[in-house]
């Protein structure tokens, strides 16, 4: 069997219904009846870049959270470099770096360096290794000047760089990004994308899976695109193949056709 960077086999995820009032006390025992992912299967090669696209609630973040071991799949199996995310979470976490587009994900009163030292230590780097790695990443990400400033004083763009530096501290082979440019202005987002493409994927051969609503970003970064809708995987192919299969001129048009066609088929 070929070793993929990521491999999903018939992954399903159901959540319990959202309860309120006294019914919320039943939460720990309520049944998993709300589908979020249904029968998702695909593989990602080492060094490949795959984008997840789809409307809000399509299941993109759920899928990424399963890959990061933050969620357990209800059925099926997700593997990162051969390790099962449900059965071998510690081994999976050694392989992955994770960054979300939220801008409050650090200890605000600690400096950037203190934050990175904390996360490096929690990823089993010794103090000396952590200090060396932080200097390397600071040079790579251009945040050397900011390391001794409190995280709360950094701009959103710099917080993103810091978040990416944190995700790369332990040299992960798979990078998982959830809407990485969500709160960035267009110029900062473009710079961030160039950086990902040239310095992370290009220079280090890191496998990248990311979710995004920005189709220009998807076209710039992704080798393949997985289209999710209502928890179903509607397509997973190269941009060119998706456009040609739908006869669309743009990715936006292709997505509309794929989603409309799926809605017609399911009635």
């Amino acid at each position, binding site marked *: 069997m070929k070793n993929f960077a990521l491999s999903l086999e018939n992954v399903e995820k159901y959540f319990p219904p959202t309860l309120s009032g006294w019914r919320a006390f039943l939460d720990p025992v309520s049944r*998993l009846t709300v589908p979020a992912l249904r029968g998702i299967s695909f593989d990602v090669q080492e060094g490949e870049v795959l984008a997840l696209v789809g409307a809000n609630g399509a299941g993109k973040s759920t899928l990424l959270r399963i890959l990061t071991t933050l969620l357990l799949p209800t059925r099926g199996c997700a593997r990162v470099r051969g390790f099962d995310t449900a059965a071998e979470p510690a081994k999976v976490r050694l392989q992955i770096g994770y960054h979300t587009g939220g801008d409050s994900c650090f200890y605000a009163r600690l400096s950037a360096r203190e934050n990175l*030292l904390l996360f490096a230590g929690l990823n*089993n780097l010794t103090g000396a290794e952590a200090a060396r790695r932080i200097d390397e990443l600071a040079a790579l990400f251009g945040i050397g000047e900011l390391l001794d400033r409190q995280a709360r004083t950094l701009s959103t763009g710099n917080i993103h760089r810091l978040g990416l530096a944190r995700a790369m501290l332990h040299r992960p082979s798979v990078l998982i990004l959830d809407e990485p440019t969500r709160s960035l202005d267009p110029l900062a987002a473009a710079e961030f994308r160039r950086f990902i493409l040239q310095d992370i994927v290009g220079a280090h051969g890191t496998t990248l899976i990311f979710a995004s609503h920005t189709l220009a970003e998807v076209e710039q970064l992704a080798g393949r695109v997985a289209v999710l809708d209502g928890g179903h995987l509607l397509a997973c192919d190269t941009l060119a193949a998706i456009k040609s299969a739908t006869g669309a001129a743009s990715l936006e048009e292709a997505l509309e056709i794929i989603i409309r066609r799926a809605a017609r088929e399911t009635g």
Partner: protein
Amino acid sequence: MSGAPSFVVTLRKLALLFRRDLAVARSYRAAFVVELFQALLAAASFYFLSRFVESPTLKRSLPPGADYFSFALVGVAFFDYLSVALGAFDGSLQEARQNGALEHLLVTQTSLPVILAGSSLYPFALLSLRTAIYIGWGAALFGFPLHGANWLGALLVLAASVLAFSGLGILSASYLLIFKRGNPVNWVILGLSSVVGGMMYPISVLPVWLQYVARLIPVTYSLEGMRAAILSHASIRELLPSIAGLLVFAAVFLPVSFAIFSWALRRTKVTGTLTHF
């Protein structure tokens, strides 16, 4: 990557989490000074209360060698260990949830129990400092008796208390994992302990049936042991019943609470509510 034995790596991580909390606390410089003077005011109010309520009847109810001021000061100072144990795990979980760092902590090579244990070190260290300040003010200004206290015995009682209370703290964190807030585990334990645990009055003043209830909660053994060690100068041998009682609670609470915590953690990964608050 570190090739050190796993317990060394775990100790290093615990120290890192302690340093994180210390660094955050240092960034609020005025808080420590306020803490110092709050302890003075609390010690002063117990002193004047004790002057008001001191009587031969009360004196007979207290442990040998204790006046009401020192009895209440030890009760209040060490009762806080229970409050901190119940709040520390909850607090670190809530803080990480609210600042958005929890997901990122959980994708590191460190398990949630180690993160929670490390996050409880600073609150315990701060409380120990506050307790020392309480007692220091009491001794310097209001005649709290330090001479002859069995400090080693007090430390052993304290260690056993922290183990017993931590089991309850983990139980409380399990509740918070599932239900997010409004923690009745804390409310019941703290409420019951403050009424029957002997914080402000000896349990001998309670109705007999409540005295039996007091024997079922760890804080009773903790405060008895502390007062015996500090105020009555009890030997280690005399402290053994209190220490043994606390260790029995720890032996029961710790495995049960770890099992419940593991279930709660798994459940949040099933329901997708791990980072909700």
